[in-house]
């Protein structure tokens, strides 16, 4: 059944959108990621204008992260203080991101920026995750090797220290603020929550305990994407409510199913599967930039 999207101004099959939402929601449930990095490029591929895809996807992530953060609140696995620090950075980053987006939209380079950011970040994260999980699988076969103890690094020399009780940390607020800024920019430009950057940064850079990482990152993502949605809606007029509604209906159902499947798989297997998926998407997008396009021309709205 075709449905006309009021802001995107294209007609798309409703069941394709519901199915996509469900599928990506399921993957995000299995792997514990937002799924924005998969959904945004897919939306662009099926013909949604990139600007609309990015802004609308931010809106969808509000729903999925809220659903997730509720569960984490019940388990008391959210470090609210850390979340707020990350959020302050995130709001600054998102403001900058929306401005960059607006400028590039006016000179016709949004598509390039979105694709390039995807290739770089997906390649980086996917590659690291792949190597890491390969090593983890190899190590798990050789018993008796103890994991390395965390050492003090440069982060502990920075000023403005603050105590984060839930995480059991006493560190400077500068690194989490910076992580927040980077994630905020990405959220605005790529239409992603940024969990795939934030989660590793929280574990490896900030040294947060794994059990509070996901809940805290979801907490930050929910507010940053809500803010991004609002900024895009007000400055770029690119949030499509009907598209968002279809995607999140499929998404929330898929996520619940995915969570159940995720429990049955082993952590290393999960990570390597996710790494392969991330790398595949990165490869596809890189090809688009490198191969001769089948249509060299594109039509955009005129005027400034």
């Amino acid at each position: 059944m075709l449905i006309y999207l009021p802001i995107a101004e294209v007609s798309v099959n409703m069941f394709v959108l519901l199915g996509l939402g469900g599928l990506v929601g399921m993957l995000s449930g299995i792997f514990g990621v937002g799924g924005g990095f998969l959904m945004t490029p897919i939306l662009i591929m099926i013909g949604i204008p990139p600007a609309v895809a990015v802004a609308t996807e931010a809106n969808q992530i509000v729903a999925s992260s809220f659903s997730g953060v509720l569960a984490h609140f019940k388990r008391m696995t959210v470090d609210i203080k850390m979340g707020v620090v990350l959020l302050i950075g995130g709001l600054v980053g998102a403001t900058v991101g929306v401005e960059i987006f607006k400028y590039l939209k006016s000179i016709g380079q949004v598509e390039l920026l979105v694709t390039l950011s995807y290739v770089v970040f997906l390649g980086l994260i996917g590659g690291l995750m792949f190597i890491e999980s390969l090593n983890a699988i190899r190590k798990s076969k050789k018993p008796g090797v103890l994991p390395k103890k965390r050492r003090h690094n440069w982060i502990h020399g920075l000023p403005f220290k603050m105590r984060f009780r839930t995480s059991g940390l006493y560190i400077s607020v500068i690194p989490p603020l910076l992580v927040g800024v980077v994630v905020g920019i990405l959220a605005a430009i790529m239409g992603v929550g940024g969990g795939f950057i934030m989660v590793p940064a929280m574990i490896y850079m900030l040294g947060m305990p794994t059990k509070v990482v996901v809940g805290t990152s979801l907490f930050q993502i929910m507010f940053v994407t809500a803010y991004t949605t609002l900024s895009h809606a007000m400055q770029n007029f690119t949030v499509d409510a009907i598209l968002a509604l279809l995607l999140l209906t499929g998404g929330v159902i898929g996520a619940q199913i995915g969570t159940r499947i995720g429990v049955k798989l082993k952590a290393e297997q999960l990570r390597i599967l996710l790494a392969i998926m991330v790398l595949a998407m990165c490869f596809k997008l890189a090809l688009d930039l490198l191969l001769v396009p089948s249509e060299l021309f594109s039509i955009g709205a005129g005027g400034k």
Partner: protein
Amino acid sequence: MLRIIIAATLWIATPLLAQESVVVDLSQNKVEITTTFSGSNIFVFGAVKRDTPLPAGTGPLDVAIVVEGPLETVTVRKKEKKFGIWVNAEAIEIQEAPSFFTIATTRPLSEMLNEGDLRDYAIGLNYAVRPQPQSITNADTESFSEAIIRIRTDNGLYSERVGLINLTEDTLFEADIRLPANLVEGDYTARVYLVRDKNIVADASVGIVVRKAGLEAWLYNLSRENALLYGLLSILVALAAGYGASEIFRRLRR
């Protein structure tokens, strides 16, 4: 505007040819884009009126029907390979490109009408999409307007259909015009031209109003006129869906 002036002057200048006139109507002159809009068909039909019998030796009658969407300014960008990747480089602004254009004729255009009239009345795709003289910066503008025609033809927005008109007894004519699902809002026109001996002998036009309706119109207008409220509403819906989903599945688990 220019097209109307030309049409008016030509009409005054050629009173002798105006022995025939044309009456035209549409099956509907309002198209509503609703949520389930999947395109629409418009029936353009009409009749030829003759006050006096035709002089001997007059050529056969041909009819052309043009349905055109609102003109819009578009920017056409061309990709180029820079630093090893394909990026948008050269851009040209085309000021008057119809958002929708379809033409139905009884015969191929070049066979039935002279070049001057085709150009002046913008009959045919290559005359409907033209770069404005002031925006011409290099000699390759042709490829940019060709690109618009190619891309929009692929999208079903532009078409030229020879022989789509049914002409009965040189008097009654009808054509079924397909409006695709990816239509934009605006004031559309249906123009009808009667042609004899490669010259336009009569013409008429009717307007078609294409509007978003219902939920579509409400959402679109809200997003432009009250963006803050629209944004907040979008977030609220997302939060409600997130909460709803976790509640429903929590209850299902019990």
